[in-house]
């Protein structure tokens, strides 16, 4: 009933089609029977709905003069007054950043409509007020149509229109345009405003005090030369804002000497644009503080509450450490027994089966398949449960939205250690894989800062290194394995921090960098997404095991039997023995050193090589099935926990895989820096490995 009444009483639609030649301000005042209203607003605030309800079929659709942007003009009648309504393009501001903004402001300035009715979305009041702040600086009076109040109420946002009206000093009409509510009030308010029956004392945004004098100077210089119909005070503000269109207009109209002075002022106050816009934001803040009641804390921000802990400088770090600890504990508690089962029954069983099948085959073929393929690549396949659990845990944390918080607190941590803030993003990515970590340093503009980050990137333990840790720690440390793994990660990060501080001081000083990051909302994890992510990562791992690791396993086996068919006298042993003196400082024999060397191709190769070197008896022995499953026993028997810890420390910090080294070469575009990186990591890893081994011995491990 209400809408029917509205249409008959106020929207007495005429059949007149109004052309794009709009009747202006002066005409309305003279006749009192015809007024022009410009309908302004941001996109998607219900402006078109208001226009359609008001004008019905009395619309003319064309283009704005000289533009391809649609122009809609229509009419309605209210209490004997003919209202011409011009639907301005939807804009976020009037800053001449787009043709739409330019059309909207040029129309208001040149045609001077009797009223500008700005439609704003009550559910996004703050965002919508910016346009209003700009409209108030122009000549036409403004009426605010506070639309979508139902949506705002539904979202728990309460706006008091009377308070907003008092704060703004302009009429505010609450509306729900889609339900035809409040539109008659809007039209009535417009006609009353034109008739002078409504108070109109707009509170316009002010510029910061330190630029008021500059603004006054510009006004004094330009005021007399501002062409009609531009308001001189508005022109002065737009000049200070660096508005290209107004600057061009004033350059054309100012005498040369005056323009030179204006230009000098603008050049000296280039950053005033921040103050002008900042003044509008301060004004928005005042308006919303006065009239807007936000939802209560409990409703809004479960995320906020969680983040008080998760992003806290201290609690956030402790939480991250705890999370890593839990991930490793679950990985060991569930994954390690499964890995041992796979090792014993699948790899061992497969070896036994193939052993029988190849009973009459040549000895080299038997050795290649049993020792090289199954003992090497097959051993790596037993990582699968550990990796699946690890990937699931990481996927869960990512999908819940926690990983962004981890990045956030890690950045603070790195800053405390004197690291470059900008480096955190690529370094954090390194937890997954060092290759994108190195490539990701492209976000860093300073070459020296990039180099530093590239040098540090391989010190972030990637999943492949952690898989090796996950395999070896239970062998040497049984139930204490999760703590050791956790400690090794902390050791890596500590070394990274110390290296960062040292290199930072050597390579560059005092450069700051700053980021703003949107932390996504926490949400209930989607198991399908996590499952897909785990599957992709697992498939990638299996692909690597079936290609790169398999090939390296075969090469390692061939080198371990050439030339005499004995591991002890093989080419590989020769290479390994040359490194034995260094290894001895860490309690490692040549086989462990070879394992380290082969990890250069892919980190998992360390285990594959140990599988071959400790499982193989060259080309002279049978009964491989039992031997393949005995790597854990062999390692435990051959090395003390101190040596095991030394090996793990070295492999955490050792030269990264060949793919990462290739990425370093690509990104630094320098063999010198690539060699420096490799040399630095060799030095760091051996120094730390020796220190860890010697310390572990001292404490009796």
């Amino acid at each position: 009933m209400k809408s029917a009444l509205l249409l008959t009483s106020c929207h007495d639609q005429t059949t007149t089609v109004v052309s794009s030649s709009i009747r202006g301000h002066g005409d309305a005042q003279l006749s009192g029977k015809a007024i022009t209203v410009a309908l302004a607003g941001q996109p998607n605030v219900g402006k078109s709905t208001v226009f359609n309800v008001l004008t019905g079929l009395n619309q003319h659709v064309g283009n704005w003069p000289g533009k391809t942007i649609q122009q809609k003009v229509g009419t309605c009648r209210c209490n004997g007054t003919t209202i011409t309504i011009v639907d301005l393009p939807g804009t976020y501001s009037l800053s001449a950043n787009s043709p739409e903004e330019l059309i909207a402001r040029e129309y208001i300035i040149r045609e001077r409509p009797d009223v500008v009715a700005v439609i704003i979305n009550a559910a996004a009041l703050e965002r919508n007020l910016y346009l209003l702040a700009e409209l108030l600086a122009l000549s036409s009076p403004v009426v605010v149509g506070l639309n979508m109040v139902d949506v705002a109420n539904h979202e728990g946002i309460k706006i008091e229109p009377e308070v907003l009206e008092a704060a703004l000093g302009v009429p505010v009409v609450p509306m729900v345009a889609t339900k035809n509510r409040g539109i008659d009030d809007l039209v009535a308010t417009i006609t009353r405003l034109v008739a002078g029956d409504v108070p109109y004392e707009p509170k316009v945004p002010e510029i910061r005090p330190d630029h008021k004098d500059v603004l006054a100077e510009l006004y004094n210089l330009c005021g007399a030369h501002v062409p009609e119909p531009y308001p001189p005070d508005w022109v002065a503000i737009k000049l200070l804002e660096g508005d290209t269109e107004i600057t061009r207009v004033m350059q054309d109209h100012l005498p040369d000497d005056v323009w030179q002075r204006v230009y000098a002022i603008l050049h000296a106050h280039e950053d005033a644009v921040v103050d002008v816009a900042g003044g509008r934001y301060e004004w928005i803040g005042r308006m919303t503080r006065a009239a807007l009641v936000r939802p209560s804390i409990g409703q809004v921000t479960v995320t906020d509450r969680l983040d008080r802990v998760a992003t806290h400088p201290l609690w956030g770090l402790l939480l991250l450490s705890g999370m890593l600890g839990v991930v490793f504990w679950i990985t060991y508690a569930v994954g390690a027994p499964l890995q041992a089962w796979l090792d014993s029954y699948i790899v061992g069983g497969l070896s036994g089966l193939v052993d029988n099948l190849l009973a009459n085959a040549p000895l080299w073929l038997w050795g290649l398949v049993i020792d090289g393929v199954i003992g090497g690549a097959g051993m790596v396949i037993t990582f699968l449960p550990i990796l699946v659990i690890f990937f699931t845990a990481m996927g869960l944390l990512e999908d819940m939205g926690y990983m962004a918080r981890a990045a956030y607190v890690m950045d603070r941590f790195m800053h405390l250690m004197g690291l470059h803030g900008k480096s955190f993003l690529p370094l954090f990515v390194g937890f997954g894989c060092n290759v994108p970590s190195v490539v990701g340093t492209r976000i860093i503009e300073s070459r020296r800062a990039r180099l530093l980050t590239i040098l540090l990137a391989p010190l972030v333990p990637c999943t492949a290194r952690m898989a090796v840790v996950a395999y070896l720690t239970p062998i040497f440390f049984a139930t204490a394995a999760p703590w050791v793994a956790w400690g090794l990660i902390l050791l890596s990060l500590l070394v990274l921090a110390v290296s960062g501080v040292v290199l930072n001081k050597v390579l560059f000083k005092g450069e700051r960098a700053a980021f703003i990051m949107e932390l996504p909302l926490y949400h209930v994890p989607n198991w399908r997404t996590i499952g897909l992510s785990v599957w992709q990562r697992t498939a990638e791992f299996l692909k690597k095991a079936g290609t790169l690791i398999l090939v390296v396993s075969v090469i390692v086996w061939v080198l371990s039997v050439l030339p005499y068919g004995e591991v002890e006298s093989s080419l590989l042993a020769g290479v390994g023995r040359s490194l034995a003196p260094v290894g001895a400082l860490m309690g490692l024999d040549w086989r462990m050193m070879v394992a380290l060397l082969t990890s250069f191709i892919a980190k998992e190769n360390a285990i594959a090589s140990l599988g071959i070197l400790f499982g193989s008896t060259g080309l002279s022995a049978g009964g491989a099935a039992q031997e393949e499953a005995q790597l854990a026993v062999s390692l435990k028997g051959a090395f003390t926990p101190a040596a095991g810890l030394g090996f793990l420390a070295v492999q955490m910090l050792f030269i990264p895989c060949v793919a990462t080294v290739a990425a370093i070469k690509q990104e630094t575009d320098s063999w010198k820096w690539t060699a420096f990186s490799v040399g630095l990591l060799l030095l760091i890893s051996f120094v730390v490995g020796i220190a860890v081994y010697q310390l572990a011995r001292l404490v009796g491990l």
Partner: protein
Amino acid sequence: MLTELLRRVAQGGLHSAAALARELGVTEALLAQMIDDLVGMGYLRPVSGGCGGGCSACSLAGGCTIGGPGGIWMLTGKGMRMTNEKP
């Protein structure tokens, strides 16, 4: 308010949008608009696609914040200069 936002960011490191909005007493939606404005003015710039297409090799691609759903912006040289010059 924009100056205050830039000044806080320029202290260095990583700032969460939520924390900045809280400190400035505005909603995150308004902060997003302020960030857009500062990008338009050349004081901030969005960081995206930083890994140069290395995502396929990265196990963190799914939850990556570089070019992911949550935006990241960095202070530009112009932003840094302005905050250095202003008290």
